[in-house]
């Protein structure tokens, strides 16, 4: 470098001295938009210029749990709720009502027979709210207020229930502008109403149903013309959240995550699908006959044939073992598959892994997560023959929670030996492993087919897989 000003503290032009003049108003408002409304109002006492910022603030954020610290020491629950309602009412009344609301965030306890929540929603609809983020605790089933369903400006709606709650969906069409819908801990009671509701949102692109319950459903039908992302997650529910058929008919669908075990899964008209997570949580052979299981496997594999990224749970790998002795039910190849993530808990999965690798001739990245337990037997046998993807395409391999048992070493040895174009192999140690140096020296001795493979060993990263596929649960 020619210039040597590195150690001189340089202030950019125009903002020496008082920093107020330096941060333009739109940046201050940007910072304030992340805060709770009560913080923004308090900031009105900072200086004259800030006095009425809150009156035009298009981001509103009310949280009954954090608005006052330890209110329960001073007031009864009833008083807290009353004061909170007064506060929200006062803000909505005092704000400049010509300002359109960009985002409204609320954490609130809704009591049956109290229509305050509906009144707020009315005001928000009039002020053309775009994003609604609602965390609600409700003792009685809740209904979406008609004004919200009819609100044309609404683009993004999130509803989290603190405790499972029935949400009554509208039986008339609406949500004409809604692109993203996130529902958490919602109990659905009527399959027909849900199917009709989803298919009648004309521009819906993202639907996430997290920890939802579909009680007494025979069929869960998701038909939506513009839907690109779909997540159905019933794992958090103890018991059977999804003992029904799942039918996906979404021609624009790109990404699909299913966490839970359906009794049947079929894809109709899903040619755009690229990214799929199938996190089955129970062994299907317990609940279905061999023939039924094979038909189901067939239906699934047909639906995901063209995808690029696939992530599978242990229960699904076990399910896949069905296909190993019967190649006819798994004859098609995943020609577009670039990335595969597998979670391995059992010792027989070597067959499933090899089977999948054989069916994915263009695979570029493989991640395998091991969960070791005492019952593992060291009996993995890797084939002594070429696998097309290893020969031509597989470049990145990630092996997580390795504790150095024979099965893992067999897989590492096999990949190094057959991976002709391998570039990176990352190995993350499991927490149980006390001394990795012995295994490192063993791994370093394995013959390699690729001359420029870089082996990297990492400290334990606990629960990495769970964070990746279930990160939204928390």
């Amino acid at each position: 470098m020619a210039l040597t000003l590195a150690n001189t503290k340089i202030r950019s032009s125009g903002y020496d001295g008082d920093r107020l003049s330096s941060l333009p108003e739109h940046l201050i408002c940007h910072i304030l938009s992340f805060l709770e409304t009560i913080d923004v109002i308090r900031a009105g006492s900072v200086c004259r210029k800030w006095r009425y910022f809150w009156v035009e603030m298009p981001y509103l954020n009310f949280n009954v749990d954090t608005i006052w610290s330890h209110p329960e020491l001073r007031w009864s629950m009833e008083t807290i709720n009353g004061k909170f309602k007064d506060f929200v009412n006062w803000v909505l009344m005092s704000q400049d009502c010509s300002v359109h609301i960009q985002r409204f965030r609320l954490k609130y306890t809704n009591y049956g027979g109290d229509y305050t929540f509906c009144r707020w929603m009315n005001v928000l609809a009039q002020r053309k709210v775009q994003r609604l983020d609602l965390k609600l605790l409700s003792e009685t089933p809740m209904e979406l207020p008609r004004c919200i369903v009819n609100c044309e400006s609404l683009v993004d709606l999130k509803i989290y229930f603190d405790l499972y709650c029935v949400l009554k969906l509208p039986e008339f069409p609406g949500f004409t502008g809604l692109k993203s819908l996130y529902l958490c801990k919602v109990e659905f009671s009527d399959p027909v109403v849900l199917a009709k509701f989803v298919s009648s949102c004309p521009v819906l692109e993202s639907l996430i149903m997290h920890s939802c319950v579909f009680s007494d459903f025979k069929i869960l039908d998701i038909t939506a013309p513009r839907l690109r992302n779909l997540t159905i997650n019933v794992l958090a529910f103890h018991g059977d959240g999804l003992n029904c058929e799942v039918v996906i008919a979404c021609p624009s669908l790109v990404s699909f995550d299913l966490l839970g075990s359906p009794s049947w899964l079929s894809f109709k008209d899903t040619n755009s699908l690229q990214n799929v997570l199938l996190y089955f949580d129970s062994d299907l052979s317990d609940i279905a006959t061999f023939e039924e299981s094979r038909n189901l496997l067939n239906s699934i594999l047909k639906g995901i044939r063209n995808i690029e990224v696939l992530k599978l749970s242990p229960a699904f790998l076990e399910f896949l073992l069905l296909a190993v002795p019967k190649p006819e039910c798994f004859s098609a190849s995943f020609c577009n598959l670039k990335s595969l993530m597998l979670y391995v808990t059992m010792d027989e999965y070597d067959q499933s892994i090899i089977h999948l690798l054989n069916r994915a001739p263009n695979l570029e990245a493989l991640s395998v997560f091991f969960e070791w337990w005492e019952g593992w037997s060291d009996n993995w046998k890797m084939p002594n023959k070429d696998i097309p993807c290893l020969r031509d395409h597989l470049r990145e391999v990630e092996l997580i929670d390795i504790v150095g048992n024979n099965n893992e070493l067999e897989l590492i040895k096999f990949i190094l030996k057959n991976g002709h174009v391998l570039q990176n192999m990352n190995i993350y140690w499991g927490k149980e492993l006390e001394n990795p140096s012995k295994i490192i020296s063993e791994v370093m001795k394995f013959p390699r087919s690729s001359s420029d493979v870089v082996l990297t060993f990492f400290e334990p990263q606990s629960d990495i897989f769970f964070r990746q596929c279930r990160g939204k649960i928390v």
Partner: protein
Amino acid sequence: MASSSSSSSTQVKKITLKAADGKHFEVEEPVAMEMETVKSFFVGNEDAMKDMVVPLLNVSSEHMPAILDFYRNHSEFRKRTPPPPAEEVKAFNEAFLENKSDEQLMEMIMAANFLNTKELLNFLTEAAANRIKNKSVEYVRAFFGIENDFTPEEEARIRAENEWAFDGLDED
């Protein structure tokens, strides 16, 4: 934690950026294009590519390495399949903010605003918000370096009006 040592053999095109204090930074083209301000410098001006130095009048060289590091890492996070675990992104972001004074944070917000990159600007402004969350008015003034221009009577009146907003704040 170990780190890999692979190096790319292909030649990546570099762009030279000049910070407010005149110091030059050679930056890989895709990283430089993360900044809308730099990108717009070249749009419709194909000849500009060669040997041109892009002046960044509002960015001090003190912050350039960190800012470039943010772009490099976040563009890698975006490209990666499967996407990186949330923990990894969080760890990077936390390390990025560690040891940054309030003043440095403010200067970087100005820089991100000038460079016109939404991702960095949102990240930094949210970090600033977290630092003033539930803090007293005096703390917020000091944080932004703002003079109190209210008379004591005015301020007392405003506080009385908004009494519930001054209950149970965090220690400054």
